[in-house]
């Protein structure tokens, strides 16, 4: 692989990785927002965690 094409391949890889990470960040922000909403509205209460285990 020539130096130019190696560079281009990495440029592409970096762009796709950061695009994927940006999507990942939006996803985790959404998950966190839903979680907080469930706790504040009382859907997830103090006994939720304990109820998952023996």
């Amino acid at each position, binding site marked *: *692989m020539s*130096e130019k094409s*190696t*560079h281009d391949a*990495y*440029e592409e*890889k*970096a762009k796709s*990785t*950061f*695009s*994927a*990470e*940006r*999507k*990942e*960040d*939006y*996803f*985790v*922000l959404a*998950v*966190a*927002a839903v*979680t*907080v909403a469930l*706790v*504040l509205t009382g859907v*997830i*209460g*103090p006994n*939720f*965690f304990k109820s*998952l*285990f*023996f």
Partner: protein
Amino acid sequence: MSGGGIGVEYSLKNLPKMLPGLILCAVFGWMALQWDATMSKWNNHFKEAEKVLKAVNEGKAATDYAEYKQKHADSFAKRTEDFKAAEAKYKEAKAAGDKEAKPPRRVSRPVVLAEADYNSVAQTKAIPGNLSFGSTMISFQLTYVAMLLLVGMLIRNTVGVPEIFKAGTIAARPLIKPGIIILGAYYMWSDVLKVGFFGLALVVAFVMGTQLLISFWGKRAKVDNGLAGLMGAGVGVCGVSAAVAVAPVVNAKPRDFFYAIGTILLFGTVGLFTFPYIGKALGMSDPVFGAWVGTAILNTAQLVAAASWYSHDSLLTANVINIVRVGFIPLIVLWAIYFYVVKPAVDAGHEGQKINVWEVITTKFPIFVFGFFIMVTMNEMGMFESQHRSILAGDLLKLFFAIGFAGVGLNIAFDDLKKAGGTAFMIGVVSATLKAVLAAIAVMAIGGDAFKVKG
């Protein structure tokens, strides 16, 4: 890396591919938390058995199990009554506008031994084996974090992870990030600013220092720009993602990339499994350990795991330092552009390439940290009651972390670690070790008060 690294893109199209692995990680996470709950219960019962044993040896024990149980029930009823009275007083004071009033602590149920365990202690004057086992596991810090990492790594490197689960186990790792965000419910801005201030000083001194050291050492040792640039970004600030960000800037070759990633993963893995024990051996307090791993361990997933392994208070400190650290990714990319592209061009008498600083910052900044800041602001505004904080920053945090750590453990492959090698490996490992040692000295000298999160 800022948490996920090179993985599977989150999209509905990829969901069927990710689902089996995500379910596997959820099951592993649940099993590890169940282990934690059992060990914690046995440890509490071990402490209670010690009290019973002491009473038996001193001749002060209850005459039988029924009397022992009744004593605890009476004591609990009395404490509950006291709590209710204190809570009523607190509500009155609050209604009267007393801002200094503090809510009373909730009464926890007393630990009562099972009849068989009680009789065993009373008759044999020894503590039953299962209770001692729980206490031993806890004293060796074999918590859910350790179990997920150790067992995951063992599975990955012996029987292996079947292809069908691989995408999902990689996709599980970023689920640590919602945990980091909701942990924000525990902080006040004064905590973030105080710890963040010292964190910023540590990040500038050690993280940027490592980047500079590797850049200049790499030049002197005539290591390729590509490899030195990747190593500096990876070892200095943020693992795999930073290396990927810098790769095109420094014209990295595929071999450089694998060497750098191998070194980063190797050091991170060794740090993850040894730092909690080194911290205990050096007598580091929880905040000091949190500050240390926040500075010395190279990526979010590994440092969050190491800090959680140590204690919840360590995690609170490490989280703030990490937020500061990942904010430095754009700066590291800017440095690499300057050092490996602009400076050599200017030195050679050519016009330097123009850098679009704003574009680099906006495209490389990890935006999930805004979620954390929003949570801190909501807490500051009094939107969370103590019960909400306990559910978010205690229970649900553990659930997210358990799934994420299962993904981390199942992705520690020795084959990846073997890819490290050569002069650059030596430069990377020496720099990372030096950073860890100097950071340990610095945080211990600064002391726990500077890093303590009061909440």
